[in-house]
């Protein structure tokens, strides 16, 4: 899955959808992200992991436009991997993006948050769920299709008079919402307020809502947090289905190692804002620096650590 047969390179090298280059984020004197570079493969499920306070959510906020990075370049590629010339060109001309017929290059660090989602098609969820609690489940999914519906309603003019073009668009949007409700198993609760749903259902609804905005890259901030094992399993199935049926690439932050190791094709490990490991789940979980970072021990104690972590496919350690 993770390697492209053409040239033996892993897919995140051969066909990246997102390239993070030398990302820095400073808050006053604090450096939250320090010279971080990594790539996310098209069609991959990529996990961004690291101990608490490693700067994962900050990276997410930079990618999705909520923070403006202090330095660095965030390249999002539509269609195919961009050539270095294309990247250089869009960087030089100072535009936010360069979109051709079958490919597009977006520089996310130049875009405000709503354009990252609306234009570059990067959707996200939040660590502390952010649903529109006072609106119904269905309404949540309709809001997610705002930009498409706004155009269809003729910026409200057509909609105000109930013209047929708008009615059709509204029907199509409802159908899409129903599709996603079915996908996340919330059809029965479509007319209930989102705030009334149990926690696990709220997490699924947030993912469905993000998917309703038709992203090419879906960023999930701790999607399994607070889920019970069964829900966690359902989440894995859902994410795999999203990738398989919609071709959406997924970037997720997760603490639950069973989820990470189970579904990801590619893992990037952060600690203190820098990357300490990057590779397949196999490679990463055997990386002594990762283990040390997670438990805060010397590399000498790795073996002991592995026993505790129950990650021991290779008892002698030192895989990477």
């Amino acid at each position: 899955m993770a390697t492209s047969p053409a040239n033996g390179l892993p897919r995140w090298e051969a066909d990246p959808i997102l390239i993070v280059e030398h990302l820095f984020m400073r808050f006053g004197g604090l450096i939250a992200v320090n010279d971080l570079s990594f790539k996310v493969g098209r069609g991959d499920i990529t996990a961004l992991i690291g101990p608490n306070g490693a700067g994962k959510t900050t990276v997410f906020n930079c990618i999705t436009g909520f923070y403006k990075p202090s330095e660095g370049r965030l390249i999002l590629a539509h269609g195919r991997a961009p050539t270095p010339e294309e990247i250089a060109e869009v960087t030089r001309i100072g535009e936010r993006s360069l979109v051709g017929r079958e490919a597009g290059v977006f520089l996310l660090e130049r875009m405000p948050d709503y354009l990252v989602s609306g234009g570059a098609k990067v959707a996200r969820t939040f660590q502390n769920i952010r649903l529109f609690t006072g609106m119904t489940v269905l309404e949540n999914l309709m809001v997610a299709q705002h930009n498409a519906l706004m155009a269809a309603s003729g910026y409200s003019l057509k909609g105000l008079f109930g013209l047929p073009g708008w009615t059709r668009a509204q029907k199509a949007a409802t159908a899409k919402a129903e599709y996603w409700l079915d996908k996340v198993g919330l059809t029965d609760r479509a007319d209930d307020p989102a705030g009334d749903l149990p926690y696990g259902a709220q997490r699924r609804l947030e993912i469905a809502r993000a998917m309703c905005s038709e992203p090419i890259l879906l960023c999930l901030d701790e999607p399994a947090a607070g889920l019970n094992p069964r829900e966690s399993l359902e989440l894995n199935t859902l994410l795999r289905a999203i990738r398989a049926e919609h071709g959406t690439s997924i970037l997720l932050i997760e603490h639950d190692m069973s989820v990470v190791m189970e579904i990801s094709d590619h893992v990037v490990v952060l600690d203190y804002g820098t990357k300490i490991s990057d590779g397949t789940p196999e490679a990463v979980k055997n990386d002594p620096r990762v283990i040390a970072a997670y438990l805060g021990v010397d590399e000498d104690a790795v073996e002991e650590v592995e026993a505790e972590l129950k990650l021991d496919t290779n008892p002698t350690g030192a895989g990477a």
Partner: protein
Amino acid sequence: MEIFVQQLINGLTLGSIYGLIAIGYTMVFGIIGMVNFAHGDVFMVSAFIALICFLLVTTVMGITSIFLALAIVLVVAMVFTSLLNWAIERVAYRPLRGSFRLAPMISAIGMSIFLANFVQVTQGPRNKPIPPMITDVIVLMDNGSYQVTLAWKQVIIMVITAALLGGFWYLVQKTSLGRAQRACEQDRKMAALLGINVDHTISLTFVIGAALAAVAGTLYLMYYGVANFADGFVPGVKAFTAAVLGGIGSLPGAVLGGLLIGLIETFWSAYFSIEYKDVAAFSILAITLIFMPQGLLGRPEVEKV
């Protein structure tokens, strides 16, 4: 040059009064995150209490020493205004704590309207003038045609303001009350878990704010020699502007902001147009909030995602 110095003195005097009112805004905002809309009217009520007390002391009790009279008026105004603000918090704001966010603000607007009209109904709509007191001035400069004077009452205002601020600063920084107050500002729930009586602390904040407003009200009455029921709203908004300009939540900021607003207003009136002096103050409020919402001495807010 002479005019400039004179305006500087006048501006600092006015600014001291604004600063005293601004502290009430900034403390309440700091501790419960609400704009206490009624604070300007509390200030106005305090001026009336001072007025009534002054008349009682001078005409009925026959005290002739102006300084003794002033001291009595100051204390009485502080006591009664504190009681008023304590009751306002109890009746209009405390039941709404933890309710939805607009509720206390709207309640405060209602309270502001109530106070202004209560004074109008009980004391009448007309201006209430008192004879000028402490009319002595110190002539600082004299170029023959224009005298720069420093009135004794201006000195009194600045000295009282400075002394109170010093005491107040000590209270907030060094005493356990101040510590409790700062803890409640940071995290009310945690403070309560640590055994701080949050209700009590908030009540005290209102009481202190009112006491300072009462000082401002007394000094205002002494300086301008007049009280009117409608005099709460505009000074209130200006003091709020001062609190915002200085950085809301910051005590030195409130004083700095008050002085700046006082100076801007006096210079604007002297050099541009007196008609538009309130427009100038309101514009500063808008401009500050739009371009520098953290104010001069406030901490910038980072949006949490």
